[in-house]
């Protein structure tokens, strides 16, 4: 039990005032010795004083705002700590390419970001035990939500990813921020970072090294879902031969870099919502290990309780006031 305003407790001695002060409206009586002793009256007199004292005690304690400290409870759940790193670049607002799976499916016309938001929402809903955190990035990372088990918050954050966006894709920043989410959080044993992007960007050697170190140190497995751009090349295209004296395409280069990570890595390629769904299901199945985490339970505030008791006492005293004799001399 701690107090928000402990200095107010210095006022507590005021509570004995009702014992010291005489009730001013006492009637004068010629000779009190003549009144026979009456145990019920004495009891009421004592109770009234006790009530008055308690009223003051509870009001002052209530003002000092007593509350318990927040508690941490260790919980065990199945599932993972999952950081969502979502691409917010402007190209995400384009429809799926749908190139290889045919143009006749029903969700044609759904933009990549909307489909991603919808599927991720379902994904989040299906994994009640997981902790989710979220980072979005376009030209730089945007910190959205730390790892938390609050499903409502993460769903609201996913829904909020729509809207105007910039054109660049700074994957390096997104990844480092996403890895940063796991920093200083107890390792549950199952950590995953889902990177959802269309296309790729290049990273300099420093960033690459940093990502490598962090993912290794924090034991994060990486799932990369590439939403293919129309006419873009597939990272799984083994027949692709890069032209002479030209750099590798960013996607392929990034894929190659991810493969060098010491932590587990898996890449998916999605051309339409259906294949995106398949990718999400696959991740869903992979990340099912029991995790340990600490749940924070906020401290309870007892000041209302104090005020309610004080109000009860005051109403009791008011009731007694109503019983008071008014007609006597």
């Amino acid at each position, binding site marked *: 039990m701690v107090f928000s305003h402990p200095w107010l407790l210095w006022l507590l001695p005021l509570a004995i005032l009702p014992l010291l002060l005489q009730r001013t409206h*006492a009637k004068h*009586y010629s000779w009190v010795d003549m009144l026979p002793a009456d145990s019920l009256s004495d009891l009421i007199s004592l109770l009234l004083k006790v009530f008055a004292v308690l009223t003051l005690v509870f009001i002052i304690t209530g003002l000092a705002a007593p509350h318990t400290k927040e508690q941490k409870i260790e919980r065990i759940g199945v599932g993972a700590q999952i950081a969502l790193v979502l691409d917010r670049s402007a190209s995400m607002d384009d429809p799926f390419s749908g190139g290889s799976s045919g143009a006749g499916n029903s969700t044609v016309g759904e933009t990549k970001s909307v489909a991603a938001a919808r599927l991720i929402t379902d994904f989040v809903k299906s994994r009640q035990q997981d902790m989710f955190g979220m980072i979005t990035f376009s030209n730089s990372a945007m910190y959205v939500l730390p790892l938390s088990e609050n499903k409502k918050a993460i769903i609201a954050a996913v829904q909020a990813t729509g809207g105007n966006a910039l054109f660049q894709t700074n994957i390096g920043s997104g990844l480092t921020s996403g890895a940063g989410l796991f920093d200083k959080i107890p390792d549950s044993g199952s950590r995953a970072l889902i990177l959802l992007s269309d296309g790729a960007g290049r990273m300099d050697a420093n960033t690459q090294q940093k990502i490598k170190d962090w993912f290794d140190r924090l034991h994060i497995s990486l799932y990369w879902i590439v939403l293919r751009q129309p006419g873009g090349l597939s990272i799984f295209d083994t027949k692709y031969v890069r032209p002479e004296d030209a750099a590798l395409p960013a996607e392929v280069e990034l894929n190659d870099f991810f493969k060098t990570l010491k932590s587990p890595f898996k890449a998916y390629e999605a051309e339409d919502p259906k294949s995106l769904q398949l990718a999400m299901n696959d991740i869903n199945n992979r990340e099912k290990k029991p995790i340990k985490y600490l749940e924070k339970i906020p401290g309870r505030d007892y000041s209302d309780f104090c005020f309610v008791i004080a109000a009860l006492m005051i109403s009791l005293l008011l009731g007694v006031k109503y019983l008071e004799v008014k007609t006597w001399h």
Partner: protein
Amino acid sequence: MIEDIKSFSYHVGWRSRGRHPGRHASTQRGMGMEFRGHTTLLSYPDPRRIDIRQTIRDPLEQVYVRLFNQKSATPVYVICDLSGSMNFGAKKRKIKLAAEIAESIAQSARQHHDPFGFIGFDEVVREDWISTSSFKSYRAIAMAEALKDFHPAPVNCNGITEVYRYLPRERSLVFLISDFHIPNTLLEESLSNLLRHHIVPIVLWDSAEYKDLPDFGLTNVSDAETGEQRTLFLRKELREKIIASFEKRRNEIYELFMRFDMPPFYVEGEFDADLLTEYFHQFVAA
């Protein structure tokens, strides 16, 4: 103003020793009607009182005069309690009622040609509330008039033990006005000092003290003298207990006064002078 005050008639059952002519049987020789005996003219040289019959019957041929007792005045005193409890009273404060009674007594004393004096006491004898014995009662009545608006301080009435020092040596008629909310030992001690005088205790009680209590409710009472606080939860049971307690007290003081042969006179609420006349007829042999 003075004419409006209702008086009562009183008498005393003993012989006054006062020299001043008045209305009461006296031990003083003088121009009265009460034959006392004969003596020689030489020892009582008043030729108007020569008793010829007795003179000629005496073989030694002395001249005799008749002796008579005169009627004398008897000092009348009011000793009034000015302690805190006298401030109590529902319709009329006890101190005001006491002042009215004192006025009536002063008026009666004036009509009986007796000197009247007033002594007030609380925890000491109050020198500022003393009116010395006088045949002119106006001063005492003026003081009683002032007493009606006097609010006693919350003090006890221990001064009652000292009151006898302020009374004359000769036997007087003393009206002791108080509510007698006094511990018995204190009352007994002071009464035994007053035995020289003829005491008429006038007991002032107020019906609001015990009979006219509110039917139901909570109240706080503080003692008018000690300031002691009590909370009362008034209900039928407690009211009955209080009435019983006062009836017990009434018996107690009655028995105490009767041991000193001083029948108490009770006044509750209003004072009726005729009842005091009645009292003297009932309790004092003429």
